[in-house]
């Protein structure tokens, strides 16, 4: 298979996994926690590299599970124990962890860990590093990405009822006997795992685009979780495919282009929906009396 095809396979797999967990994050208004985790896993990635000598892979994914929960727990501690506002508490934790990662990255300089790859993703090069699977040379990244995607889908199917309840109404979920805190932290751990598995494709910053933008776009069309998730996956995978093709054509950053295409999708849908809803909305908005 051609390199571009493999690039698209990697990109769509990562995008699908990200957008699935992203649906939960967006509904629970945790988008920024997703952003924070994506920054915060950097030191874990670099540490895993320094120890195992490999970029990504299962050790990094497992390490990320811990970092994911740790970010939210630390931010919570900073917020509660010091009275710093919640958003600033999150900012304190993830910028510090990210800076730590960057410094570690600088110290690892000279080895074959490329800062550009970790920060912005070098999906262009991912297909070159292959491993044989049943006689077919498959990009090594997929060996983590595909299982992570399957696990994500499996967990959501298995715990569908719980996820649905906690996503829309955590208070009611608790009343119904569901351990909302447990689900919450499990999803955060999953988010971190997905982020790390995907970072090679989209990098540790742009992974946010895949986490948040497709679910928001899908949310303009539907408010029901079992419609939202497939639709978000649709937008995510098309953005990944379109982004890869455009970037290859113009010879520029694939990860960046994926984010841009996802943004364009959102913009188009917003325009369409505002034309459809515009009538009703303007009736509600019009208002401040001329006397004021």
């Amino acid at each position, binding site marked *: 298979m051609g390199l571009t095809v493999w690039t698209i396979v990697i990109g769509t797999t990562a995008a699908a996994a990200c957008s699935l967990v992203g649906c939960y994050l967006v509904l629970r208004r945790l988008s920024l926690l997703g952003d924070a985790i994506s920054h915060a896993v950097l030191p874990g990635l670099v540490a895993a590299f320094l120890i195992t000598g490999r970029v990504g892979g299962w050790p990094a994914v497992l390490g990320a599970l811990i970092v994911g929960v740790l970010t939210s727990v630390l931010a919570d501690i900073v917020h509660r124990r010091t009275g710093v506002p919640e958003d600033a508490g999150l900012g304190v934790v993830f910028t510090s962890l990210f800076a730590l990662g960057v410094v570690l990255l600088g110290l690892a300089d000279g080895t074959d860990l490329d800062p550009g790859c970790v920060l912005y993703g070098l999906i262009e090069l991912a297909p070159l590093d292959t491993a044989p699977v049943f006689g077919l040379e498959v990009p090594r990244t997929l060996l983590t990405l595909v299982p992570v995607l399957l696990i994500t889908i499996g967990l959501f199917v298995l715990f569908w009822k719980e996820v649905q309840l906690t996503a829309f109404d955590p208070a009611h979920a608790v009343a119904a006997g569901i351990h909302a805190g447990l689900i919450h932290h499990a999803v955060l751990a999953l988010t971190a795992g997905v982020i790390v598995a995907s970072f090679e494709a989209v990098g540790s910053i742009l992974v946010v685009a895949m986490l948040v933008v497709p679910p928001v776009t899908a949310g303009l069309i539907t408010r029901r979780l079992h419609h939202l998730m497939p639709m978000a996956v649709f937008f995510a995978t098309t953005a990944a495919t379109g982004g890869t093709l455009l970037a290859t054509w113009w010879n520029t950053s694939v990860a960046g282009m994926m984010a841009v295409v996802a943004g364009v999708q959102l913009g188009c849908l917003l325009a369409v929906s505002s034309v459809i809803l515009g009538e009703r909305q303007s*009736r*509600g908005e019009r*208002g*401040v009396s001329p*006397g*004021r």
Partner: protein
Amino acid sequence: MVPPVLEVDDLNTTYQRRVVLDAIDLSVDGPALVAIVGPNGAGKSTFLKSILGLVPCTGSVRVLGQPIDSVRRRIGYVPQRESVDWDFPVSVGDVALMGTYGRLGWFRRPGAAERRVAQECLSRVGLDGLEDRQIGRLSGGQQQRTFLARALAQQADVYFMDEPMAGVDASTQAVIFDLLDELRDAGKTVFVVHHDLRTVASRFDRVVMLNRRLIAAGPMAEVFTTENLQQTYDSQFVTLDEAIACSATTR
């Protein structure tokens, strides 16, 4: 002829296409203590905010016979306690001083005169000696009194207070009622969103009964009736005493 203190004509407020206040017409003469009552979510806070121009609305509002923007110096406001961040790094004295900022205008810093006013207002609400305390380290009643002191420092003619007696103890409530009486005796008009129906009839001159629409408004003796209460509170009870008892237990 003295214009009414508050004149509201066809006031409508919607939040995200939901009508919260529906065609309110109202005229109130002062000086008076005016209670605004209604169940939770009736739109009482929204009513105050609409009058003060804090939320978009349609219709006309005149305070002291003029549009609100021309009389802002003469208006005092006590917001609901939940509306601010009590971790904010200001002291009780700082908050009281904020009442004088409107008169000071751009760039001028509060001086000795303003500090004296703020100090005086703090003693009127019984917060002497607490001026350097961070506002988060106060009890609920003290926080409420800090807001009152700030409103007093505005030296206004018309006051709008949103549940100044929510979650305060009996002694704070007594302090606040005495203060309200003082204000009325000094010729001011005070609108108070009030939850406790037991004290409405005895402590206020006029009442505005609100539940999305204006149910009734006027002098206490004429308007504060079982029938109107039933309408305001969606007829959960049959007598005035029962209504009052009910309001006491649900608080």
